């Protein structure tokens, strides 16, 4: 499985390492031509305004729209913002997922946090349940609302949506690539493989 990681800015090398640990091939995508031969794409964490501007400048908005017509895309944090259709401010977005996202929803860096999260969609253990996923949230967004056809995969205790899936598309507010737990990457490879 060949997974591209959008390498305009952000923690793309962490995603590449995670994909390689789970047995996939991973490569950096900076220009539309880098998308050739890929089965799926990850948009990493970073600054969504930076990633958006560079994507516009180098013709990636249209190229990624085309890519998304047939292939899977996963966005983490800034990547989730980039996949969304609305962030209630003016910045370049792919608009592929029917979700509205609030940027920096918890506040500034002082409010960045780690927490154990229940993500029932992840692979079940012997007891029939998925063990909690240790999630790292950095100046993180939340998914404020989802359209019909979007499945909510995880919420915080207060109800905030922090992971969602719409068919081939996956969005997470947190950063599985910052941990050694590769279950979300495995889940994404499952989506890429048609699950």
């Amino acid at each position, binding site marked *: 499985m060949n997974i591209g990681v959008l*390498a*305009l*800015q*952000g*923690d*793309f*090398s*962490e995603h590449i390492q995670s994909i390689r640990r789970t047995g996939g091939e991973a490569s950096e995508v*900076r220009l539309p031509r880098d998308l050739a031969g890929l089965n799926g794409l990850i948009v990493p*964490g*970073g*600054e969504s*305004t*930076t990633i958006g*501007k*560079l994507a516009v*400048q180098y013709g990636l908005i249209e190229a990624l729209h085309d890519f998304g017509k047939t292939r899977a895309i996963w966005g983490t*944090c*800034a990547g989730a913002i980039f996949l969304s259709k609305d962030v209630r*401010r003016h910045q370049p977005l792919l608009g592929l997922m029917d979700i509205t996202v609030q*940027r*920096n929803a918890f*506040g*500034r*860096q*002082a*409010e*960045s*946090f*780690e*927490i*154990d*999260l229940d993500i029932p969609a992840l692979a079940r253990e012997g007891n029939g349940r998925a063990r909690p996923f240790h999630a*790292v*949230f*950095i*100046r993180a967004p939340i998914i404020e609302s989802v359209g019909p056809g979007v499945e909510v995969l995880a919420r*915080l*205790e207060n109800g905030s949506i922090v992971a969602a899936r719409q068919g081939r598309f996956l969005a997470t507010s947190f*950063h599985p690539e*910052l941990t050694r737990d590769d279950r979300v990457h495995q889940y994404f490879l499952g989506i890429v493989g048609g699950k």
Partner: protein
Amino acid sequence: METQTGTVAVKRGLAQMLKGGVIMDVVTPEHAKIAEDAGACAVMALERVPADIRAHGGVARMSDPEIILRIMDAVTIPVMAKCRIGHFVEAQVLEALGIDYIDESEVLTPADEAHHVNKHNFKVPFVCGCRNLGEALRRIAEGAAMIRTKGEAGTGDVVEAVRHARAVLGDIRRLQTMAEEELFTFAKEIDAPYELVKETKELGRLPVVNFAAGGIATPADAALMMQLGVDGVFVGSGIFKSGDPAKRAKAIVEATTHFRDAKIIADVSRNLGEPMVGRQVNDIPSAELLAQRGW
């Protein structure tokens, strides 16, 4: 579900989100907007850029909180600010303002000539400068969550940035070939904690993100530092002391992303107007060199 804030993972993690990006020095909210519009991944809020600190002379201190707050209000990207080396109360003030990252910086006049801030005492993450691997690992031992090579700020001369990046990255490469028993002596030679030396050898890189700083003034300078192997760049005086800051800022952002693509670097380098007036590091009296501050 128990929430933990101010952890090593979230401190180092924010720096990981900045990788591949350009952090720009700004002195006004208008500058901050220009930087954000150009694609900066963060801004450093200052009263004066390093070139002006140099020209102004006197004691350089933390900026007026009012300026920092106005810059924080102006942009959605992370905002950093500088405290003096060892000035832990300036750091407490910056933390109280809600700043995203503190730069314990040699560009300001040191407040302590023996001790850096104990950065473990803070929830806000710190970035610190270094000239070599030993200095980088000492700062990480004190709790720095991000490192930048110092270069020589406010000069527009990239030579020191290259020297310091080559020193750090070269030592990491040498470390790869060392036998386990040689690490103890090496740690002693570079005056760094053994455990961090060992971790660096195992990782094949610093345990935290490593940017370059000090003298980067052109898109090619930024790409040079990236090709040498740093994770991103700080640009201080190089943007807002140039003829067309918005255009140059955007060009440096694009060259940092496409740092291996000489065609793109050539394209973005066209018609950028006047670069900042440089000052050769070799012409600066050694007492005025900022990089030698810090221990």
